[in-house]
């Protein structure tokens, strides 16, 4: 059973397009995150949700809009894609009382051409 699953695994798209990445966790966790890992391999937090509510937005452009329809899902929608958005995006989840023990998905490699 996959604990945190993301789809798609690979995404190639043209500049200016709108795309979504889906994330689901079956661990019963209350907190979910989106991270971006760029070509230099730095992992940066983008958003954090706790029980469907946005807790953290780390100065991400408003072209990025997370949506949490329920506690088990946190999707990421990106409008007007730019070349600089090319990266690997990781979804993660953690229990509310042990937020340092997070489970990560396999990542979505987004390439904007």
């Amino acid at each position, binding site marked *: 059973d996959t604990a*945190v699953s993301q789809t798609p695994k690979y995404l190639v798209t043209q500049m200016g397009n709108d795309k979504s990445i889906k994330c689901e966790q079956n661990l019963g966790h209350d*907190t979910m*995150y989106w*991270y971006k890992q760029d070509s230099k*391999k*730095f*992992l*940066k*937090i983008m958003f*954090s949700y*706790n029980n469907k509510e946005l*807790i*953290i937005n*780390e100065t991400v452009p408003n072209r990025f809009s997370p949506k949490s329809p329920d506690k088990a899902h946190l999707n990421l929608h990106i409008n007007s894609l730019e070349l600089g958005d090319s990266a690997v995006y*990781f979804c*993660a989840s*953690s229990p*509310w*009382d*042990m*937020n*340092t*023990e*997070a*489970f*990560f*998905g*396999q*990542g979505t490699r987004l390439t904007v051409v």
Partner: protein
Amino acid sequence: LAKTTQPISMDSYEGQEVNITCSHNNIATNDYITWYQQFPSQGPRFIIQGYKTKVTNEVASLFIPADRKSSTLSLPRVSLSDTAVYYCLVGPTYSSASKIIFGSGTRLSIRP
């Protein structure tokens, strides 16, 4: 959140014990020390967490001195499959502003 400093890279050989040290001089009283491992093309994976002294699990040991200003992740008898990036993180386990901040990590390369 306390800042961490760890070596950019390390090399070792199969069967050796590898120790990766992380400095966190500004660690706060309620901060825990957590280590993650990331293989190429995969998401980070939680390895071990501790508050003080020594913690051991089936994967690694974590040594934390009394002043808690540093910590050492110890991997016993490494194999080629331990080649990965290892991240040291410091922060409270529970915070109303829940987030996990990753530093630059240590790229560990294991040779035959």
